[in-house]
């Protein structure tokens, strides 16, 4: 209890710097948090398209049904493939009519080719794997064309990669700044309390006892920074929800993890500087 009040006294000596420390921790976690949100929402989007066809191969009109069945059996044995379906010309027409509604009359039997639809196993749906499966299917001579959602799959993955890199880079940069600022706060506090600390040493206070208030100070700042970041991320998420697309938010475990991350940063900032500065007292 004494240590907590002492730690807060320490922060009171340098209120501006302390606030800056909290805010930079918050920025760091905010960057990580935004990246995390993008990542979990892309993950959710990918989960939702799980049941969508990944690869569609169009079959030439004159192809014997036996050849198609044999090919489907082959493709079904690819390790990446979960299921293979045949869509006849009639079924294709039927589907198109249903999807297009009022423009259904445009379609005539025979316009749409028959196709085989290939569903991939989960974990095998990244752009590279999809492309390699598509390329293998293309080698059948009776396959006219192979389509897969190359564009949007790639875009989604690229977005996730950008979010990852940007989030980690920004988060780490802010974390470094936060640690430096916390170190500077501690430096000021140690200097202001140099006499007190030297007397503590003389009368036999342990190193841990002397350090503890500084570590608690870092811990409190880290947790505050974590909470502040949570507010930032939550607001950002609300805004996106309101004006752009529906997104999901972190679950309780992830929020807890973020705040623990803040606490870790705060304590680390204290640890790296407290030893160095105490040695000079």
């Amino acid at each position, binding site marked *: 209890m*004494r240590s907590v009040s002492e730690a807060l006294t320490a922060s009171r000596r340098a209120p501006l710097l302390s606030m800056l420390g909290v805010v930079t921790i918050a920025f760091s976690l905010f960057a990580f948090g935004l990246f995390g949100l993008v990542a979990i929402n892309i993950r959710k989007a990918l989960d939702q398209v799980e049941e969508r066809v990944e690869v569609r191969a169009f079959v030439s009109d004159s192809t014997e049904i036996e050849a198609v069945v044999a090919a489907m059996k082959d493709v079904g044995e690819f390790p990446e493939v979960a299921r293979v379906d045949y869509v006849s010309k009639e079924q294709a027409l039927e589907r198109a009519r249903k999807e297009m509604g009022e423009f259904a009359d445009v379609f005539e039997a025979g316009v749409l080719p028959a196709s085989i639809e290939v569903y991939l196993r989960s974990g095998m749906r990244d752009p590279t794997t999809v492309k390699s499966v598509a390329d293998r299917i293309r080698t059948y001579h009776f396959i006219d064309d192979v389509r897969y959602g190359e564009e949007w799959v790639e875009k989604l993955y690229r977005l996730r990669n950008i979010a990852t890199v940007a989030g980690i880079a920004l988060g780490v940069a802010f974390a470094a700044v936060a640690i430096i600022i916390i170190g500077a706060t501690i430096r000021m506090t140690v200097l202001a309390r140099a*006499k*007190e600390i*030297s*007397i*503590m*040493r*003389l*009368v*036999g*206070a*342990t*190193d841990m*006892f002397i350090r503890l208030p500084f570590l608690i100070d870092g811990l409190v700042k880290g947790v505050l920074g974590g909470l502040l970041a949570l507010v930032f991320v939550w607001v950002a998420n609300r805004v996106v929800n309101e004006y752009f697309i529906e997104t999901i938010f972190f679950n309780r475990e992830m929020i807890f993890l973020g705040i623990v991350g803040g606490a870790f940063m705060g304590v680390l900032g204290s640890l790296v500087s407290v030893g160095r500065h105490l040695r000079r007292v």
Partner: protein
Amino acid sequence: MIRLTDVAKEYPRSGVALAQITFEVRKGEFVFLTGPSGSGKTTILKLLYMDDKPNQGEVWVNGVSSLNASGREISRLRRRLGIVFQDFRLLEDRTAEANVRFALEVTGAPKATIRAKVSRALTQVGLASKATSYPRELSGGEQQRVAIARALINDPFVLIADEPTGNLDERATRGVFQLLRDINASGTAVIMATHDLDLVRRSNYRTIELNHGRLVFDSAESPLSARPPDEPFQESEAANDTQESV
């Protein structure tokens, strides 16, 4: 209880501060550490409370050796030492009482015992009536008594005093010195660094004299021989002072 064996201390820039220092202090003894300024008195005391380690030899205090003491052992040792300085080292923003209490609070002493211990220590140094005064409201002698009360709070087996009367006038010096004698009379060893030769001469305590970091005289080693003449002592102090100002 305290033993220095062939101790040498060297500072990176100023060179040799101590060389070939060997002596022992027994339980309950009173020892003067004398010598001109810069002769190494403070350095020896620092080694005793393990604020620093010797470059050579061993400092052994109550079972703790400079050769292998851990930080925790040193902290524990200091709780059994009383340390007093020329400049008192009191916290200006705390009362006399709070300054004394500080030593107990930061070493995790049980709360229940603190009050009684603090008032006993202040009474022992004759300052019970000034418990709520701040250092700036106290005379130099009184401030030093507060510092001594703080040093006594954990019942030390030895009181280490570095020029405790260095900042005091004649009267306060006598008072503080008498207090140290009383403390010694009740069984606590006292090691006192001073260059006040009057104090040393007026009492009959053991005297260890340093010059340029060497032990040049120990009255316990040569109890029958007289003290070395005073003149060289004065001269070397003057010589040393000019050296320091260079």
